[in-house]
């Protein structure tokens, strides 16, 4: 088998070969370890590799599968976890110098879940320091340095799940775990040309994950397809008494069946007309083409508009205040000055100054917004638009000015804890990927998966990958 083919096979395709005993989990793991060791530094993709853990897990998987104990589609599949998820005995840097030597003596719930289904941890993915919790101005805001986009190494991957995006795009692992408080799964997915799922708030436990804004933090997969995202999501979703914000058992758990999901219902699509004030021409062209595909394969595609109001402002206040609270000791000790980014070194001091009344005003506005979105979802199952109005930006760009466009979609989606899935939908004239975002009502993760799956059944953008030599 050509090596590049193996690198870019989906979880679903790899699982078939593993289950049929045509592919050895140990060989597969060694292959991805070698590839990650060789190519990872090129993209600053990993915080560290965990070869001992990986090979031990792969050997167990292989033994179990040989003896007929196949655990399911992630059994023997290698993956990377964002370096803010605790793995027992392995440094967990949160992408930031003040935490460079931090080690936990337990596994995050997500890691436990992935262990349980037999997945193989290749390593910890690089990330923006503190997931951007103290703000950042440059792509280099990371202990691991700037994450380089496999489609063009002069461009950024987006953040904060920057390493997770690079790893999947470069074929260093079949999937990676990322997190999103605001844009950190969807943006890297779009910039890197991979599929990424931001689950409904509360469906995936954050126990053992770094807290940034606890009322908005979510964990989800980046992978080669919507179907792969669904398979990983099914493994990591679930109620967890150790994270009291997780939903009750029946609302948190997710079971996935490819055939059931595709035939489950006719979806009503709302094509958003006011998500972005301006869209880069190359992105607009790809998004327009995607809209035509949707019109062909979905019975109802109508124009829709997001509610207007200072919702993005509310989201910014909530993230700022909760972030200042999460990192209070870092700010007050002055160790925030050890962060790499000039904005990260000072923004925490500013964020500490918001008043309680302003924070609560933002939370009350959130309630109004949630009701407005519930009403909008009475007319539509899904809201769809370009994931970002631009393609991957230059590594040198000052993000504070160059990526400062209004993002009501990200604000609304994250304030309301709505599930969203970004899939590749084309390329710009510079051959940079463009993402298409599907967003649904809270709890209706199956709708975004179903819609993205249907889209990917009729397109092949998700099968494209950068040429890597």
């Amino acid at each position, binding site marked *: 088998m050509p090596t590049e083919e193996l690198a870019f096979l989906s979880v679903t395709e790899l699982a078939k070969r593993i289950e049929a005993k045509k592919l050895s989990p140990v060989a597969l793991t060694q292959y991805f370890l070698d590839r990650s060791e060789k190519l990872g530094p090129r993209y600053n993709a990993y915080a560290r590799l965990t070869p001992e853990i990986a090979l031990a897990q792969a050997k167990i998987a292989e033994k179990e599968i040989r003896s007929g104990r196949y655990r399911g589609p992630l059994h023997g599949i290698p993956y990377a976890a964002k370096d803010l998820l605790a793995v027992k005995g392995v440094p967990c840097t949160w992408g930031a110098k003040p935490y460079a030597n931090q080690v936990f003596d337990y596994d995050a719930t997500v890691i436990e879940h992935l262990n349980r289904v037999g997945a193989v941890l290749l390593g910890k993915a690089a990330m923006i320091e503190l997931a951007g919790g103290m703000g950042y101005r440059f792509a280099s805001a990371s202990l691991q340095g700037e994450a380089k986009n496999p489609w063009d190494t002069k461009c950024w991957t987006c953040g904060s799940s920057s390493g997770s995006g690079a790893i999947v795009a470069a074929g260093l692992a079949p999937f990676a775990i990322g997190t999103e408080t605001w844009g950190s799964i969807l943006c890297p997915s779009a910039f890197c040309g991979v599929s990424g799922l931001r689950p409904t708030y*509360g469906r995936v436990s954050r126990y053992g994950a770094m807290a940034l804004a606890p009322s908005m933090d979510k964990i989800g997969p980046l992978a080669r397809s919507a179907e792969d995202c669904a398979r990983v999501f099914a493994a990591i979703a679930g109620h967890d008494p150790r994270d009291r914000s*997780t939903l*009750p058992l029946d609302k948190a758990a997710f079971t996935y069946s490819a055939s059931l999901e595709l035939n489950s219902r006719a979806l009503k699509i709302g094509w958003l007309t006011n998500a972005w004030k301006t869209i880069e021409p190359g992105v607009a062209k790809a998004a327009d083409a995607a809209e035509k595909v949707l019109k062909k394969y979905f019975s109802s595609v109508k124009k829709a508009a997001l509610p207007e109001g*200072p919702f993005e*402002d509310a989201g910014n206040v909530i993230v700022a205040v909760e972030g200042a609270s999460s990192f209070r000791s870092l700010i007050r000790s002055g160790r925030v000055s050890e962060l790499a980014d000039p904005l990260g070194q000072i923004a925490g001091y500013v964020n500490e100054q918001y008043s309680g009344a302003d924070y609560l005003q933002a939370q009350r506005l*959130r*309630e109004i917004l949630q009701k407005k979105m519930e009403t909008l979802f009475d007319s539509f199952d899904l809201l769809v638009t370009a994931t970002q109005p631009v393609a991957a930006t230059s590594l040198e760009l000052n993000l504070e000015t160059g990526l400062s466009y209004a993002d009501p979609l990200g604000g609304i989606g994250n304030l309301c804890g709505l599930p969203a899935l970004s899939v590749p939908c084309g390329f710009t004239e510079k051959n940079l990927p463009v993402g298409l975002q599907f967003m649904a009502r809270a709890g209706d993760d199956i709708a975004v998966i179903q819609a993205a799956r249907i889209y990917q059944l009729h397109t092949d953008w998700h099968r494209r990958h950068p040429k890597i030599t």
Partner: protein
Amino acid sequence: MARYLKRGMDASAIKAADAKVRETVENILAEVEARIQTIFGQYGSRFSEAQKADIRRLCNLAQLPLDRLRAYSLENGDGPGLYLKPLLEREKNPLENTRVGKTPNAAAKP
């Protein structure tokens, strides 16, 4: 724009409107400055002059969104966001969702 809006107003009304605008602007500037001075008072020795200028800029930038947020009209009964709801629901009836026979992901199906 302001001149256009003031057309037809008598002199005393214009004066009162101008005073109100001035007072609002002064209050905003005072609030921003108070915030800056609190930071500098507590942590000033930690910052370079360039960082102090940056903090001043950030505090000024934060004010407009804050004013937009505050201007949004809310009723007394509008409570905080629904993100607290799952916890409350579970605490009211913790066993409700553990009954045998409930299909996982039922909420996601039509």
